[in-house]
């Protein structure tokens, strides 16, 4: 472990005040000894940098998928006082509301007699990769409505089922969305891209439930052994990227205007309730709603393919849940002995609200919010549930994925994409991508083992495993 960091418990570590100048609170991160060699000094520095921001509450936090990002580390979580704190695009990222959702089917592994044909059909149907364009033709008014209403807009346009709405975090709509704060440039980028997967680590995966750890919770989530599911991982595409770029520029000036000292320009920020802070929050919320619609449109495409190929009803493919990875939210949490509204930033982290909370859909309320943790190609994904412990210790947050351990360049040189594809095929996993290079970059070896990451959040009690899913076929952008 790095010098100057103190062990708090089996899987929890503290970065003390003073690790970098100006820290207002300590940093805390969750990692096992087993994964400690994956920890980058740069990521810890970023975690400590976040602790210097005004109004930061209790700790700057990071989950076990921690790695270097920009501004905040990936895996970073920080909450800020509503009155004295800040909002920062560095705590959200360029891909606003990049997230993941899980759709179930009534099929079992035995029903997928020709997995290659299924994957090819999904690849043909879902626009994928750099430069992919949507089949939807949105007017400017459509885009305004979509950004204001999120998943509701999609359902109103026949792109899903009413039940999808309640099975999304925030019911697929941040009500603070302000489309007027989204620039013309962002709109130009967003109009042709709604319903496209993108590239990089984004994917569409057909999976089978191969282990059930908590039968009661699995039943509540509608999951059973052998069941075929689909996982979708993508975000707000060019619209969200441009919102981040545009508002970073504005918030840079605001940082100076409000006399806020920051150790990294990517942490540009403004008071939560300042004109600049509110404009960013409104635009970010609009981009978050766009991202939910993006995943909803892809869900519709997936259901249409399954209905056509397997003769099952659209309604037989409910959404388990949709979680956001890159977002800031106004949430009520207990802090310093009382409940208050905080601006919680999660940058490559997942909300993991515990049982009994109003924000958890009624059907899951006794269990806690479903938490979806994707693995890498060839490694297992998990569904967990949120806990009261997460509410107490991490503002209701947990990890968002396996976390990279190898650079994309190194991964490309380590194993050619074709070889990765063939190795995965030998394990019964079909990979379809726009290029072999993108397969190489996302090779399983480039990531921490998802089992180990999930084990850390289990040991810390931040979320508890419900089921494990094994990949059948993967589509990469």
């Amino acid at each position, binding site marked *: 472990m790095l010098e100057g960091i103190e062990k708090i418990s089996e899987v929890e570590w503290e970065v003390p005040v003073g690790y970098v100048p100006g820290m207002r609170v300590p940093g805390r991160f969750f990692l096992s000894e087993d994964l400690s060699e994956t920890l980058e000094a740069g990521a810890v520095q970023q975690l400590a940098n976040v602790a210097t921001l005004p109004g930061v509450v209790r700790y700057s936090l990071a989950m076990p998928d921690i790695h270097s990002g920009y501004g905040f580390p990936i895996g970073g979580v920080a909450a800020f006082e509503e009155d004295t704190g800040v909002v920062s695009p560095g705590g959200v990222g360029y891909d606003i509301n990049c997230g993941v959702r899980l759709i179930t089917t009534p099929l079992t592994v035995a029903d997928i007699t020709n997995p290659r044909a299924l994957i090819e059909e999904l690849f043909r149907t879902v626009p994928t990769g*750099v*430069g992919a364009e949507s089949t939807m033709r949105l007017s400017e008014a459509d885009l305004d409505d979509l950004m204001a209403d999120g998943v509701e807009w999609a359902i109103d346009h026949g792109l899903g089922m009413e039940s999808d709405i309640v099975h999304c975090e925030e019911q697929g709509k941040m009500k603070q969305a302000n489309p007027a704060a989204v620039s013309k440039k962002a709109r130009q980028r967003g109009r042709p891209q709604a319903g496209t997967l993108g590239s990089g680590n984004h994917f569409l995966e057909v999976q089978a439930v191969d282990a059930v750890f908590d039968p009661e919770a699995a039943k509540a989530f509608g999951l059973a052994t052998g069941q075929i599911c689909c996982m979708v991982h993508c975000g707000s595409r060019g619209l969200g990227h441009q919102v981040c770029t545009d508002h970073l520029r504005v918030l840079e000036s605001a940082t100076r205007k409000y006399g806020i000292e920051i150790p990294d320009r990517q942490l540009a920020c403004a008071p939560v309730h300042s004109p600049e802070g509110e404009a960013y929050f409104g635009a970010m919320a609009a981009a978050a709603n766009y991202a939910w619609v993006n995943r909803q449109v892809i869900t519709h495409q997936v259901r249409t393919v399954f209905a056509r190929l397997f003769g099952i009803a659209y309604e037989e493919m409910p959404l388990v849940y949709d979680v956001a990875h890159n977002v800031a939210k106004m949430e009520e949490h207990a802090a310093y002995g009382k409940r208050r509204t905080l601006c919680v930033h999660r940058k490559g982290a997942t909300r993991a609200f515990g049982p009994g909370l109003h924000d958890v859909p009624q059907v899951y309320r006794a269990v806690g919010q479903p938490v979806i943790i994707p693995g890498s190609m060839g490694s297992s994904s998990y569904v967990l549930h949120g806990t009261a412990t997460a509410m107490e210790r991490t503002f209701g947050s947990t990890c968002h994925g396996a976390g990279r351990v190898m650079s994309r360049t190194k991964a490309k040189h380590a194993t050619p994409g074709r070889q990765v594809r063939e190795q995965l095929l030998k394990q019964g996993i079909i990979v379809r991508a*726009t*290029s072999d290079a993108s397969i190489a970059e996302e090779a399983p070896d480039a990531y921490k083992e998802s089992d180990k990451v999930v084990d850390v959040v289990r040991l810390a009690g931040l979320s508890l495993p419900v089921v494990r899913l094994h990949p059948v076929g993967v589509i990469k952008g």
Partner: protein
Amino acid sequence: MSFEELPHQADVRVRVRAEDCNALFAEAARAMFSIMYVTCDEGEIERSITVTSDDIPSLMIDFLSELLFVSEVDRVVFSSFDVSITGTSLTVTARGEPFAREKHQGGMEVKGVSYSGLTIFRDGEEFCSEILFDV
């Protein structure tokens, strides 16, 4: 090539070298398009863009962000850049070819150009920059 990829666990960090500041910015743009589209050939499409910023690091971010925007919206893959910098203003004439799915789709989308770790400095006779792209 006068740019190289540096190790970074999640995103893409490049080091760019050039004989002067104008060429440095042009090389940074070449690096970005190489990441996104892998193959970037000469073409007949031409765009002229002017960017003004508060300082030189911001100028680099704003310049690359603007090219990213134009490339995506106009569906153009740029390959060569004539850059002229005066103070903290920049004018670029960028040339390239139309985006073609079968030729250009294999790269990585650049989501943004980060201030984190951005450096622009002199190394002897050369101008250098290290830039982190969020992909």
